[in-house]
């Protein structure tokens, strides 16, 4: 091995400090807290109670199941919505337009999630842009209730996470040689066969890596469910927030945080197994 110079180690110091002080130590502290439990006489003891609460109290695990199912649904929707876009940008339009159009796709990310969420509120509310338009052209008489429902929440989550699906899919599609599609077509394959036998298998690593990012973003999101979600959309992150800030129960909050980390990682692992992908391959 090559001998490292002093500068190399000096430059490592900030990175190591950063990792230790901001990531490793706080997490260790949280792990420690999550196993501490406060008895009725305000005594702190070591206990698994914080984790058990999650499984004992139906409202907590039900919320998690609901959050997870919604996140999987949003991930799937993100794929359905963005695949044609990614395909169009890489295979149909020319290079000179496609990079400009990709740039356009990035704009919502520059604005920030909170602002786009407020934008959706303006569009979706009872006397908002969409309802007013539909009433004015006479399609409906009464405004359709869209804001503060699961529908508006799904839109918000989808809008925020879509881009993270498009980019890995585009890079996968980009490397797909057009001649493969042409050859299949010459040999008489139908459009569906080309799609399911060539395009999908080839882009699976891109789809899976996009899917993982989207799933993790959505399951850990706080803003969209909280603002667009309405009165029944209790998201699991909201419960963690409440544990920390409303009931001052950091120990339970820490335990819930680790449960979210563990359970969502488990879901990703299962998805990798099901799709036959390896994390190293998807991650690259």
């Amino acid at each position, binding site marked *: 091995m090559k001998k490292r110079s*002093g500068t190399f180690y*000096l430059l490592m110091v900030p990175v190591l400090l950063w990792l230790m002080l901001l990531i490793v130590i706080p997490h260790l502290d949280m792990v420690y807290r999550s196993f501490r439990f406060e008895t009725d006489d305000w005594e702190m003891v070591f206990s698994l109670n914080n984790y058990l609460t999650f499984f004992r109290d139906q*409202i907590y695990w039900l919320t998690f199941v609901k959050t997870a199912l919604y996140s999987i649904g949003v991930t799937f929707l993100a794929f359905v919505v963005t695949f044609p876009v990614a395909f169009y940008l890489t295979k149909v339009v020319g290079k000179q337009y496609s990079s400009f159009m990709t740039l356009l796709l990035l704009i919502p990310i520059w604005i920030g999630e909170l602002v786009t969420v407020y934008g959706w509120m303006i569009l979706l509310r009872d006397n908002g842009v969409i309802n007013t338009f539909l009433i004015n052209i006479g399609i409906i008489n009464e405004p359709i209730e869209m*804001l503060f429902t699961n529908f508006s929440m799904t839109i918000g989550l989808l809008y925020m996470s879509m881009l993270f699906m498009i980019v890995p899919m585009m890079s996968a599609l980009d490397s797909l040689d057009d001649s493969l599609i042409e050859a299949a077509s010459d040999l008489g394959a139908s459009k569906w066969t080309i799609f399911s036998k060539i395009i999908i298998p080839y882009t699976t690593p891109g789809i899976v890596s996009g899917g993982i990012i989207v799933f993790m973003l959505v399951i850990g999101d706080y803003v969209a469910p909280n603002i667009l979600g309405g*009165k029944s959309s*209790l998201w699991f992150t*909201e419960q963690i927030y409440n544990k920390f800030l409303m*009931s001052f129960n950091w120990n339970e909050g820490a335990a819930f945080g680790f449960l979210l980390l563990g359970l969502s990682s488990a879901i990703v692992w299962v998805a990798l197994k099901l799709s036959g992908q390896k994390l190293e391959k998807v991650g690259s």
Partner: protein
Amino acid sequence: MKRLALVSAIVLTLIASGAMAQESLRVLTWKGYAPAKLIKAFEAETGIDVKLTYSNNEEMIAKLRATRGAGFDLAQPSQDRISFVQKRFPIYQPIDYSKVNTGQLVASMVDAVKKNSAVDGKGYAVPHCYGTTGMIVNQKLAPEADDWSDLWNPQYDGKISYRLKRPLLIATAFGMGEDPFALYDDIDAYRALMKRVEKKLIDSKKLVKNYWTSGDTQVAIIKSGDANVISGWDGKGWTLHKENPDIDFIAPKSGALGWIDTFALPAKSKNIEGAYKYINFMMRPENAAYFTNQEGYGTASKDAINFLNAEIKANFSRSFPPADLDNIKWHPPVPAGFEKIESKVLDRIKAAK
């Protein structure tokens, strides 16, 4: 290598000297509590650089708890949220009332806040302003809504909104004809009451448009017409009234909930003298009146009334006829352990269908 060390040394000195050049005061407060004009005047008068962080009661406690009372020189919690926190996590330090110009404050409020925030006989807070939580109603569309019980009145189906936090549970109890504050020394009776409140709010959840979550969403939901009968703060209601005379703040018949926000010193405050200067500056009659004229909340400054706009005075007399004024339910200090009960109740209501 040597060069790098030199550069980093220079950078570090620059950062350090920049931070020390000016005396600063880090204030943890609520939006609107530190009007820009007053902050500028304070900075010009004292040379202290004021750094503001906006927050709310829950976050204030969490922030200070995380640092054990460091990071800020002055905080502004509500008076009922001090003593129970202080008993468990020492995040504040006692106030030296001799350094506060109490002569310019309403004496009864100073005494009440001192008593309610006391731990081991020492007061931890000075009153800043007060207001009430009541209802904001669009009186053209819901002319008869005047009580907490209208928050579950089927007549306003789909046009009701409130903030799903502890004041709402208290308000619901009052609307049901109960007195939650009387049960503050009996945790079991309080738990039973919260069960009934939970049932009431879950049963009537279908009538609710949405739960508002902040001052801004509160204003937005009634201004846009998404809701006509909402829970709300008096200052917000009066600001809305100025723009749209149909909307106004109403003191519910079963009692508006009164709160007092205070000044308190975090345990590791680095600029205690500056904090006292800030308190005394903000409570000068003309400055306190400027704040009230801007935000609509009442002030604890005694002579501020001489500087108030006529319109602000009119708000108080319009929304609080004498009977309703006497009926304001002032929040007593929250006993320990109650927030745990309430947060479970709130979770279950939010998760209910």
